[in-house]
């Protein structure tokens, strides 16, 4: 069954995605032909147990890992035909990433971490700083711009990561277990923030999580079991 819904203009399409991992002499099949489409501006949660391949799927969509078979279309662009450099540049311009373990650079301040994607897009100076502080204000951390990541709580670090994921105005935001490392209240706060900032800006959000509560923030939920995506 195709996990596809036909409303709105199609923004992301996954066609028969397959991915294996070689572990010594054994091959572990993680994704066994994933098919799905996501409409423009849609927020989708992908739910699965630990080890079900959720993060792998997100890594494939973002282009930080390569598919073994299948195709990924984002806004009419087939990412699987792009070479490494083109995929990276696509990610740089169009994708924002929120990780489970925040992945802030420890030697950069909060402000510098947030500005980084803008810098990679060749934008810096006052304009970049102002945009960073707007977003930090939006996530409630405008007063922590000079702090280093390890001086922040887990929830605060994830709010910085959200600001970083959005600063270059990407069309697609990928969130990999964004609350997996946080307590329940903080988790809800983060999901609310992510939902508000992406939905109001008309961005696509793909959220992978093992929590059905977290999935409730999305427009719809897909389930990843035994390497296949289903509607439930």
């Amino acid at each position, binding site marked *: 069954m195709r996990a596809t819904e036909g409303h709105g203009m199609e923004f992301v399409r996954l066609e028969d995605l397959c991915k294996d991992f070689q572990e010594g002499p054994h091959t572990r099949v993680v994704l066994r032909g994933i098919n799905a489409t996501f409409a423009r501006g849609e927020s989708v949660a992908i739910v699965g147990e630990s080890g079900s391949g959720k993060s792998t799927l997100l890594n494939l969509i973002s282009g*930080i890992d390569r598919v073994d078979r299948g195709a990924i279309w984002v806004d009419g662009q087939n990412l699987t035909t792009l070479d490494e450099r083109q995929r*990276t*540049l696509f990610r740089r311009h169009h*994708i924002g990433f929120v990780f489970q373990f925040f992945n802030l650079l420890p*030697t950069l301040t909060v402000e510098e971490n947030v500005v980084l994607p803008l810098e990679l897009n060749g934008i810096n100076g006052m304009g970049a700083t102002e945009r960073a502080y707007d977003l930090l204000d939006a996530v409630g951390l405008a007063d922590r711009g000079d702090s*280093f990541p*390890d001086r922040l709580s887990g929830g605060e670090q994830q709010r910085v990561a959200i600001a970083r994921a959005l600063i270059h105005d990407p069309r697609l935001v990928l969130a990999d277990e964004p609350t997996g490392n946080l307590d329940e209240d903080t988790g809800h706060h983060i999901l609310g923030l992510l939902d508000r900032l992406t939905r109001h800006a008309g961005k696509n959000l793909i959220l992978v999580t093992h929590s059905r509560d977290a999935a409730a923030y999305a427009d719809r939920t897909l389930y990843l079991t035994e390497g296949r995506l289903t509607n439930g």
Partner: protein
Amino acid sequence: MDDVRPGPGMHSPPRSGSTSASGTLWNIGWRYFSRHLWQSLLMVLGIALGVAVVVAVDLANVSASRAFDLSVDSVAGRATHQIVGGPQGVDEAIYTELRREGVVRSAAPIVAAYATSPQLGGRPVQLLGVDPFAEAPFRSYFSAGQTAPVAQLTAFLTRPGAVLVAADIAYRYELDAGSAITLEVAGRSRSGTIVGLLEPQDDLSRRALEGIVLVDIATAQELTGRVGRLDRIDLILPEGSEPGQTEIEAFLHTVTQGSATVRVQELEARTGATRQMTAAFRLNLSALSLLALVVGMFLIYNTMTFSVVQRRPLFGTLRCLGVTRREVFGLVIGEALIIGIIGAGLGIGLGIVMGQSAVQMVTRTITDLYFVLTVRGVEIPTVSLLKGGVLGVVATVAAATPPAYEAATVTPRVALSRSGLESKAERAASLAAIGGSALILVGAGTLGLPTTNLIVSFGGTFLVVLGFALLTPLVTKWLMQAVRPPLQRTIGVLGRMAPRDVSKSLSRTAIAVAALMVAMSVTIGISLMITSFRQTVVIWLGEALQGDIVVSAPSVSGLQDVTPVDGQAERIVAKHPAVARVDLLRSATVDSPQGPVDIEAGNSSDYGHGLRYLAREGTVRDTWDLVSEGDAVIVSEPLANRLSLSTSDYLNLYTDRGLRWFPIAGIYYDYASTRGTAIMSLSTYREAWRDDAVTALVVRLNPDTDPDQVAQDLSAELAAIQRLLARPNEAIRQAALAIFDRTFAITAALQALATIVAFIGVLSALLALQLEKQRQFGILRALGLTVRELRSLILLETGLMGGVAGALAMPAGFALALALVYVINRRSFGWTLQMVVTIAPFVEAIAVSVLASLLAGIYPALRMGKMAPADALRYE
């Protein structure tokens, strides 16, 4: 809460789980190093090279020192005193009289010279003319039943040109009793026959005999052109022999009619001065080898610190789990100890191999500059090996102590915080800079102290270098801030990111940069010193070389040549149509109350005009007039320093007419020897020593003549009377520079080794640094940094670190050069060098720094480029 005590039947809790805990801790250490295998191997290699350099230089020094002792002892034997006779030696009649009068029981006449023989490989050997009947108490070669059988002794005494050589050396050159041999001394050749082989009983005597050829007194006199003269008479006077010595002095006074030249003196007084001067040379080498170890230590410190900072979260976790400070400290020190032992073990082996060439270089230099070493070969004393090994292990453990302390004392909370570490590093950078500035001032003050103590001087030099190293973190931060805007303008975002990464990771980057800086500053310092020295010598040679051609007897070393030239030579040379003028020069070694002094006496009316003076009486012309027309002398700077002489003093020398005071008219710059030289007029010399011999002819040619052609003509014409060398000035200049280059060959080798140690250290430090950032690079890739940009970023970061190290090494290296040129050299050898600053060492240092850093970046750059960002993100 109630106090819970174990009741009957209850087990007490174990007092500690230290055995299994320490096993686990060791596992942690072992796994860290096995997972970072390249880093561990490079660290071991760094230590091994540092130890190898120290061991090699120590072996060279010990071997050279031993060779010196053996060379002296083989000739002096058990003599306690010697009767010496100034430049002309001792009349053999004095020996006859001494024996006839029975003034002393044990006396042996000696004629000694350095000879070469094509059959003995052409290397210098000590030709010893002896009286076998007088030898037994002094040297064991002729002791009954031990070495020379009666048949050999008979042949030695009765056969003209009879020669005895050590069996070892004979076998080496495939000679045997009966083989013909040609001996050449100072251009005179004589054929002889080996009548017997000396086979000493013990190894020491075997080595001592290695450089000796024995002939009878008459043969030696004939070969050296000193018929009827002896070089000295060896004496054995019992302990506390003042009465015996006084008696001999009285005897000599009578038989020489009051000449002060023929004197009896203690042997140690003669060899002591040479030993002292070679000691300065050897101390310099030791200091340089220690410098290589210091560079190595710095790099060990860097690597151990890195391994600690890299594992701070691990140590934090262990501390949270209840591992004590002592256990963490023990773990880090234990790791260092193991690495130190492995590195030192390998270093000892490598040092023995490297020692073989080091010995050749050192003995050659000592032969060139101080004393002809006829004994060669490498000594491998266990003490040297142990010393190098212990030094390597201690250096490793000492270098690991601060990081071990850091690992043990950091609070678990801070240990887990990277920003805590970086904030601490930033605060430490300012404190280190203050400390560094203070060290530079203290070091400079120490160098300025009016002392001749070399250890104090080297201590001051080390303080200055260490001071610069401590300035590194702050300067790195400043420089990174300074280069960021222009780099951003030229290469965009990477130009902004790279300097920021370097300055924001000072805890990792600063020490690596400091280590490279120290190594490069040593390279610059030594290069500048050698360049300055060479340039000074080149300028000095231009001023000091007289005439167009110099005619003298061939010499076996670079030492002052005191072999007389045949009396007919002057007439033959003067007859050549191209020759305009011939000046005579007599070089001799005479005695003074402070030991032997080399003198040069000439009849040139203008020689002194071309010299450069450190101090003088009046104008150059006035000064030289006092010498050429009066009885004044001018002394070289090393001699003035050695004997603490100034222009208002007198040089006291034993002459044929008693102890005489020669007024000092000037002190001139001279780099011919570290013993120093006094120049006087030939007439003053002849009058004082009643010696008409000449050791060199200084020839001036008519304009537009070819010196090479004339030199060839003269050599050919003179060959009939004596094989003399007629060398154009250019050839002498080249020969002098060749000696110079040989002298510094070992210095340059040590410098190169220090650079290799630094190179390896930096490679390992930066490699580890970049590999540690794997996860960060993964994040950057996920955020959109392309492979090419990532590679550029890594190379830019390592290149910037190399650039900073190179830039900082410039002032540090210059300061080191100032210390070496103006303080260390002056205090070691007594001469002032002119500082010559060339651009090459600076460019070289920057190039090596950047190259090492870029090389260190290549592997991580390639590896990260190949790795999928998803894998990099999974890296812990």
